[in-house]
């Protein structure tokens, strides 16, 4: 059993670009314009070099930190993705098959799974632990569990971020991620900070469960996106009601997340 508070939330997809817009979309509104992506937290020069997978990750990380009004220097990070950046994987494998000596050094160093947390720590000047993990289809649940445990064991806030971007052909026939999605939750030990957005109790249960159905989001189908498995959790936090969400943790285990409403969910500042 692990008790944590949610201090901040970040979300990004093609139809909502932050938590406020997510809540509006969930209540039936349609955003006027497509979500843009230019995370201000990384300097313009770095932003040009950063792949999309990094940009959506640092964008939601920044949103979550700003909602909590916490200094990123005090926050450890756990980045998770099921399949990593398949655009870079496709570039690397295609180039290696055709002209291996022409591999771009920048794209090579961007290919590491910890690229997003690397860019983040450089941008925020944070020396805190930066992790990058995967649990394949269960990446969301294992990352939230691992981040919550780290928050409690190390007694510091931990920023959990998960994202997937669309896989290009031929990888799209294996991974049906049609649209990018990223979300970040800033977790802290229960009671460590005033006025959390929500509180969560995590319990690992021995039970094989199916992936819960995703909430309907007008204008986008995120069903093939492993990171979007966090949507039932985000919906529960949005509703500000006490409820339990269960996500598969493995073939024989489930992660139960009991959400209780925090103080009035604070609006993000953008």
């Amino acid at each position, binding site marked *: 059993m692990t008790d944590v508070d949610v201090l901040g939330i970040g979300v990004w997809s093609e139809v909502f670009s932050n938590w406020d817009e997510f809540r509006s979309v969930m209540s039936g509104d349609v955003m006027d314009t497509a979500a843009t992506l230019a995370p201000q937290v990384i300097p313009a020069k770095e932003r040009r070099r950063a792949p999309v997978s990094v940009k959506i990750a640092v964008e939601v990380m920044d949103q979550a930190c700003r909602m909590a009004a916490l200094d990123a220097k005090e926050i450890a990070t756990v980045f998770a993705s099921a399949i990593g950046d398949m655009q870079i994987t496709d570039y690397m494998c295609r180039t290696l098959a055709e002209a291996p000596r022409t591999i771009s050094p920048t794209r090579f160093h961007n290919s590491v799974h910890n690229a997003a947390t690397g860019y983040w720590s450089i941008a925020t000047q944070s020396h805190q632990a930066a992790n990058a993990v995967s649990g394949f289809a269960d990446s969301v649940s294992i990352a939230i569990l691992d981040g919550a445990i780290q928050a409690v064991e190390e007694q510091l806030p931990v920023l959990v971020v998960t994202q997937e971007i669309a896989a290009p052909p031929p990888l799209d026939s294996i991974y049906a991620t049609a649209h990018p999605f990223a979300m970040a939750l800033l977790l802290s030990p229960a009671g460590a900070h005033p006025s959390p957005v929500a509180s969560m109790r995590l319990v690992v249960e*021995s039970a094989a469960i199916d992936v819960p159905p995703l909430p309907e989001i007008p204008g986008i189908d995120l069903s093939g996106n492993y990171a979007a498995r966090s949507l039932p959790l985000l919906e529960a936090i949005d509703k500000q009601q006490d409820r339990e969400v269960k996500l598969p943790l493995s073939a024989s285990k489930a992660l139960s997340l009991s959400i209780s409403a925090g103080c009035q969910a604070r609006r993000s500042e953008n």
Partner: protein
Amino acid sequence: MRLAVGTYTATSAAGVGLAALQESITSRRSGLRKNDLRGCDLDTWIGRIDGVEDQQLPPHLTHLLSRNNQLAWLGLQQDGMLGDIARLSDQLGADRIGVVMGTSTSSIGRTEEAYTQLLPSGEFRDEFRQPEVHGLHSPGIFVAEATGLTGPAMTISTACSSSAKVFATAARWINHGLIDAVLVGGIDSLCMSILYGFHSLELVSQNVCRPFDSRRDGINIGEACGYALLAREELLPQAEIALLGYGESADAYHMSHPHPQGEGAVIAMDRAIERAGISAEKVDYINLHGTASKANDRIESYALSRRFSKQTLVSSTKAWTGHALGAAGILEAVIALQAIASGVCPGTLNCEQPDPELAFPVITDNAERPVRYAMTNSFGFGGNNATLVFGPIHD
């Protein structure tokens, strides 16, 4: 914190299993060879393990076929690892043991292979349609299925610190009571992405790597696999060595160049020593990251000089194994554990003219002396650092 280290093993170019590794160290025989990796024409030296691709996976694991998983399987069969995992699993329950693996490139070698054999339509051939294999968690999935362990499973991929950080995660999971024991490990195999990628950064040497030598001119890439069982003390009563401390940090400086003053390295070492509850002078031996790149060795040496006195023996073992990247953490943790168990500290192989401009001296000959506390450093791209401290389980 004090976690018992149970059975452990390592497989690298310096030997398959602990006895072969120890024999290579005591006889100072390098596992490096001129690059002979099929399909790679780079003029360099590599730490390749013979016969990885000949490993037959058991029938229930063939859907996870990749050279990386074949290496994982080869490594699991050494030093009684599989048997001891099964015994602990019987004792505690398979679901009370977690699996935390480290890797930098997972099974990308398999993805590379798929791209060289695409169908005329541009699609993958059927044998390469392996969703679990082309993702980052391939090592974790493979090891969980191969061992039958059903506790929480995760793969860490933070470049070259990956399989050092598995110890930190395992410690948190056990201390928190999530599970009673964890099988930690790391697997990284030679592949085109890594060889040509490091070549593009001009970090690969055409010569044998020479850590801390004034003539050092780059790294040799290696492959390796290693495992260790970690558990609460009372569950492994035979254990003599404990994981005492870990330290993780970020450089916050550059994606592929270490912080010039080794800021992140010092923070990781400080955190590990503080958590271990010892003072820096207690550390008898440090296995360094010591890649033989110009920058790493200069900066790591400087970072050491900020914290350690010169009675601490330090060395790099990269000239035995090559740089095993995401598997370097576990491989060098095992070498540190072996230093405690055997009392032999490996002197830096190939360091014949120690660089006089370095701030901290490395040992170049093997040193025999009792080692109570041993440490290991792992630093990765993205400025990702991890340090581990091992020592006696009883004072």
